Each structure stands twice: as C-alpha cells, then as structure tokens.
C-alpha cells in the first residue's frame, strides 16, 4: 500500500500522525483531510433532506408493495354434473365440503388467534396518511439498529408500528431508549397511518412494562346523535390538512363508536396533555355536515387537572373516582408557550418554565385554528408572538421537544409570565 494512502487512513481515523511521518507527508495528508471535512460538513443537510423525504417515500413504497401483491386466485366453481344419480351423489359431498371449509376457517381463525378487527369502521378509523394517537401494549418487536417493527395490540386490533431513528421514544416526559419497546410495555403511539394496518411512529410514549395485551374493540360508526352520549376517547386521528378528525369513543354500558368530529373539537382535544382517556360528551352543532359531531371537552386547568365537560351527564359511573387508566397511561410531551424566535425548523418558545426549544418535524401537523396564520407561516417571522401548543416527543441528543402537532393560537401582547 502506498505510504500516503496509509498515512491518510491513520489520520482520518485518529486525527494524528505516526512519529515517523515527515513534514511534507503531514502537509499533503492534512490538505486531503481538509477535503474530506468539507464533504462531511454537508452530511447533516443531506440527512435532514433524507428525513424530510422519508414519509412520502415510505408511503410510495407502501403503495408499491400493496400493488405488487399477487391477485387472489380466482374461485373456480365447478358445475355439478347432473345425471340420473349425480344430483344426489354430488350435492352431498359439496355440502360437506362447504361445511368443512367453514369449519377450517373457524379453526384457523381460532388457532391463529387473530386479533384483527377488520370491519369497515375499523378500516375507516385508520385512513392512510392520517395522524393517529393510539394506546396499546407491545406484543412483539423485531429489528436492529435504526429500524424496528413493533406489534402493538390496540383497541383497533394488532397494528404494526414502524420505529426508526427519527422516532422519539419518551418515558415520563424524558427521552428513552428503543429497548423500552419490549413485549408487555404499555405505549401510546403517535404517527402516520401507512397502508396495511401499519403506523410510522413519530413518537412513542412508554409506560408500565408488564401489561397484558389490549383487547380489540368492535366499532360502530356514529351517524345520528344520541341523547346524553358521553364516553372516553380511546383513539384520535387527524387528516393531513387537519380538516377532518375522528375519535374512537368508548361509551360505558353501551358500545364503542367511531365519531367524526369537527376541527374545533379536535383542536380542543389536542390542547389537553392527555387527549386519550379524556372524558367527553358528544353534541351536534346546527348546520354541521352530515355525520359530523362536536365534543364537549374538559378544559385544562392551571394545576393540570381537568373539569368535566359541561354537557356530560351527571352520572357517577361515567367519571372514574380513582385514578383512571388514562391517568396511568403514558403520554406525549406537551409544551405551551409564545413563539420568541424561529430558525429554519427550530422554534424557541417562552413558557412558564423558561425558554424551550422545539424542532418541528417535516411531517408535523400544524393547525392554525383562528390565529389568522396559515400552517406554512408557523416557521416564518409572522408567527412571532403567537401562543402555540406543541405535542410530541423529545430529541435524545439535544433535549429539544420534537413537534408532532402544533396548535397555533392568537398573538399575545405580552409573553407568558409566571403566576
């Protein structure tokens, strides 16, 4: 091997030269290493582009994989032969065959222990491209390095959750390692719905490590308002533009509904530190679109507690007296503050606890509400002075909050002050 090749390799690896390297050799190698540093200096920007392009590319690949599936084999229905005795002789075995097939299906379903609830309402609850917040329990995990595929038993059945280096794992509002995603771990997954019952996780909040699998629920779409309908929000989804939202509402003593809610209700729900598990009641505004409802959502209080929704029925059975499962459930990180500075996708917020750095993911859902801004203006100087609520995870390297959801509020005259 060439002497300079060897010296360059040593210098790139260790940043030092062997003692016998001459001055001329050192100069030559240092100049080469300077070029290497320049190439390395662009790596962060390219990595940022790669991460930004990943959701769209993943969705494209997902569509490709689904489209590549072999078509289901055509069902061949043979014409029964009719003859003197044929009708009787062939009908009996055919009936037996159908019964056998049915029995096999039942047995297979039982053996595989399928937990998929693939009814139309469940499918509709997870629309491709939607943002989703969903609780569950990890039942299996595979993969290594940056990429993990986690099976989560959820109220919507078993869901595959894809986690990678861009996924923030949080536990007790601090960043946690991916090793916490072990079978038995209670989780709340926030991410984007991919095809085929998969979610690309943006943030996973991890809680109790030894929970039994979650039982899937059977959903019914709520089409007409029922009197005094109130329950617990189990799953929340939001369309890419934030205009459409749905919740899965578990109503004690009744059933579980898939409810389409208006944007204002979604916003109110997302303001809470724990949207999942919130006790809400269903209402319908005059002039609302068919099948669209509004929620009476408890208001966040300064001390972190919530008040019951005003129209919730006053039945003690609906509001748990002891800490509810929702209170024990892991939750995403929530930060509220006034926009003080913006640098590319990094926003500095003035909060009651001081300055907080927030990095807005490329795939973050930005809800401008009645702020007078557009979603695109969040990262411009126009957003300075606006109150925002951010939900998401934490960057393990910098401790910055990683925004999955940003709710833009009104511009405030003065920054938040400690009360």
């Amino acid at each position, binding site marked *: 091997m060439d002497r300079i090749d060897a010296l360059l390799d040593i210098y790139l690896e260790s940043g030092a030269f062997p003692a016998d390297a001459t001055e001329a050799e050192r100069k030559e190698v240092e100049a080469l290493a300077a070029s290497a540093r320049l190439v390395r200096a662009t790596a962060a920007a390219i990595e940022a582009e790669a991460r930004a392009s990943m959701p769209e*590319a993943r969705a494209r690949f997902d569509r490709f994989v689904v489209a590549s599936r072999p078509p289901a084999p055509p069902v061949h229905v043979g014409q029964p032969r009719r003859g003197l005795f044929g009708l009787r002789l062939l009908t009996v075995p055919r009936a037996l065959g159908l019964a056998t097939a049915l029995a096999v299906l039942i047995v297979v379903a039982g053996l595989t222990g399928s937990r998929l609830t693939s009814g139309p309402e469940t499918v509709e609850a997870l629309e491709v491209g939607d943002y989703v917040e969903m609780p569950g329990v990890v039942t299996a995990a595979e993969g290594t*390095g940056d990429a993990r595929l986690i099976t989560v038993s959820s109220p919507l059945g078993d869901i595959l959750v894809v986690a990678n280096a861009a996924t923030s794992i949080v536990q007790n509002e601090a960043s946690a390692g991916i090793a916490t995603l*072990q079978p038995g771990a209670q989780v709340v997954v926030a991410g984007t719905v991919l095809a085929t019952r998969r979610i690309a996780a943006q943030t996973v909040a991890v809680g109790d490590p030894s929970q039994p699998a979650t039982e899937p629920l059977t959903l019914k779409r709520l089409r007409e308002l029922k009197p005094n309908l109130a329950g617990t929000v189990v799953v929340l989804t939001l369309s890419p533009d934030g205009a459409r939202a749905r919740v899965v509402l578990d109503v004690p003593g009744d059933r579980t509904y898939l409810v389409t809610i208006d944007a204002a209700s979604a916003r109110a729900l997302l303001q809470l530190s724990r949207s999942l598990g919130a006790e809400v009641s269903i209402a319908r505004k005059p002039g609302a679109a068919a099948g669209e409802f509004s929620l009476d959502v408890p208001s966040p209080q300064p001390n972190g507690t919530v008040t019951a929704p005003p129209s919730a029925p006053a039945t003690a059975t609906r509001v748990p007296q002891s800490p509810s499962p929702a209170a024990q459930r892991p939750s995403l990180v929530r930060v509220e503050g006034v926009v003080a500075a913006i640098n590319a996708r990094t926003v500095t917020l003035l909060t009651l606890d001081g300055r907080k750095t927030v990095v807005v993911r490329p795939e973050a859902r930005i809800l401008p509400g009645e702020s007078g801004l557009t979603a695109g203006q969040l990262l411009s100087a126009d957003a300075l002075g606006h109150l925002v609520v951010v939900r998401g995870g934490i960057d393990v390297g910098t401790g910055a909050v990683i925004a999955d959801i940003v709710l833009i509020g009104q511009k405030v005259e003065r920054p938040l002050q400690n009360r």
Partner: protein
Amino acid sequence: MRDREEGQHGRGMQPADPESLARRAAARDEAAWTLVFDGHYRSVFAFVRSRLGNPDVAEDIASQVFEIAFSRADSFDYRGVPIEGWLIGIARNLVRDHIKKLVRRGLEAELVEAATPAEADQTATIDLRQDLSQAMQGLTEDQQTVLSLRFLLDKSVEDTARLMERSEDAVKNLQRRALSAMQRQLVATGYQEDG
C-alpha cells in the same frame, strides 16, 4: 434523534440477524421490507443525493431503488452481498442511467446543486454544497462513490470495501485519489475554505 447503537439487546427483542432479514426480504416478506426500507432509505437517499443536484429527483430515484429491489427480491442472493450493498448497487446503476440521460439531453447543469436554498440549510452550507457538487462532477464515478460512502454515509474502510466489492487497500488508494481530485477541482472552481 436516537443513538444509533442503543437498544439492540433489549429483553424480548429478536436478535439482530441480517441474514435472516435478508432471507425474509428475498421471500418478499412485507414486514421484513418495512425494516429494510426504514433501515436503509436515508443511506440510499444520501448516496443518490450526493451525486445529483435536485432533492426531488434524489427522492424519486431512492424510491425506485426500493421498488426495483422488492420486485427483484427473489433474485437476491442473501449469502453474498449484504442488503445495503445490493441497494447501493441498484442506486449506482439508476444514478448512472439518470446522468447519461441528462448528458444526452445537454442538461448536465442539473447535476449541480441548485442555487435555491433548501429551507433547513444555512447559507454557508448551501454555498459549500454548490461548490462540492460542482467539484464532484469532475471526479470519476468510483471516486464519487468512495467519497459518498466514506464521508457522507460514514462507512468504515472495511464496509466501503465490502459495498464496493474491492479490497481495503484499493479503497484506501481510491479514497486518496478521490480527495486529491476533489482538492484540485475545488481549487479550480475558486473555492476557499474560509470564504
């Protein structure tokens, strides 16, 4: 956002077994392909992006890499080249074809980093990327590849040798010649590190 090395030995986590993953990928196991995509997309994108001036084209080509790989999964010999090497190989071919098309159409300028700054870039980084992009065009394909693998994707000499199917000594030599050529190109384009 997380440490790349962490958490590989968690309780209940299935062991890291690249050959098992590759075998499943070769059988078009969709779950395996989810892992393959999430594990390698950013590297493939970065490799392609380092050769082309347009991030949208890079995304398109990186996407094509996975589509082609999935389509040809049954021909992938998982006992030979690692999956990443296979994907990078497909990416190299696609980039080569794309560059040939641009050259045929007289559109070589599109290979150089566009002047429009990307949202997340700092101005100094953009200038540097434009200069480097310009300088890259004066390098051979192998030289560009070795620089991308070593200094953008941060691969070791050993990994680079495996991905390029060369000896480690050959990679060290190619790396030196590539950096030397890059240095000459940067000087020729008037680039100064401090400015």
